[in-house]
């Protein structure tokens, strides 16, 4: 899971193993990537990106990005969301965060629905995200899906955390 060059960790990622298929009738974790303890320091700029595939065109999905000490929605810090329409076959979230110290990061507001924070993200605001012992203790970035209606399913294609 850890990319190395000359024996040194440079970036981390989950993997490109196509995940299980989920109906997401309730909010369901699709996949995660681990942030090891003490891996990043204050000032780090990270990119969390992931992609899913949707089975057909019957369902809208709400897609969310979280951080927690483990892959658990309860108590998790929401970092982003994207409301995927019925025609969005590859819902994804792409976000950058800047750590201003070991417990605080800044990025696009967590409730602003967009797949990526690049380009003309009109009307978006910057939010400050605080999580106790974030960089020192590490944790898990994970994505969830929640089906609004219909019978489509979701499958994670990849998820990565890059520095």
């Amino acid at each position, binding site marked *: 899971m850890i990319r190395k060059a000359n024996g040194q960790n440079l970036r981390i990622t989950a993997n490109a193993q196509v995940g299980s298929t989920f109906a997401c009738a309730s909010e369901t974790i699709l996949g995660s990537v681990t942030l090891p303890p003490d891996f990043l320091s204050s000032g780090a700029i990270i990119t969390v*990106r992931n992609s899913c595939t949707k089975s057909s065109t019957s369902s809208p999905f709400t897609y969310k990005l979280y951080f927690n000490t483990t892959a658990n929605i309860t108590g998790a810090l929401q970092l982003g969301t994207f409301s995927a329409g019925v025609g969005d076959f590859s819902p994804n979230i792409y976000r950058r965060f800047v750590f201003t110290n070991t417990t605080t990061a800044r990025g696009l507001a967590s409730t602003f629905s967009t797949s990526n924070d690049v380009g003309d993200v009109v009307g978006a605001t910057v939010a400050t995200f605080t999580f106790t012992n974030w960089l020192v203790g590490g944790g898990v970035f994970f994505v969830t899906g929640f089906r609004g209606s219909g019978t489509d399913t979701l499958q994670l294609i990849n998820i990565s955390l890059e520095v």
Partner: protein
Amino acid sequence: MISKVKGIEYNPPRTVGDTTGYTGVTTERVVNSLLIPGGSLKQYDLLGIDSRLRKVGTVGTATIRIRIGTAVNTSQQLVATYTATNSTGTLIPIMRRLSINNLTNSTYAPSVTTSNAWDHAGPTISWQNITTINWANDQYIIITSQCTNSADTVYCPYIITDFIQGS
């Protein structure tokens, strides 16, 4: 052209500098390529590919494609496509992140024939399982161009790859 992160060199394959100009035809042609040696990638790795065309002339539009295969020609496996939306679009990018689900016969990419500059910009585009690429063998990343008017000239300033090790 070697990147450094905290003084550590990281050097995935990339090309350096503009190619020569290509002009005079409206058929698809190879404008740049690089070799990914067999065994460089493993199952569940991610492979990033970033390239672009630079077009001189605004008579017609241009299409950039990524192909991957064991030889450098326009018959190799199509992996990605982007067509500039108008003739004045002279910097024509293409960026993809490929998921290597199986080293020898399963590489996932957004629909290879659907025009899209960056995979994260097109959530309506479905994913496609490419079964013809075997990363255990040498593979070429091939950038091709196709102009709608033969008077335009295209260059390829770079191909950059990004290796991200899976678990």
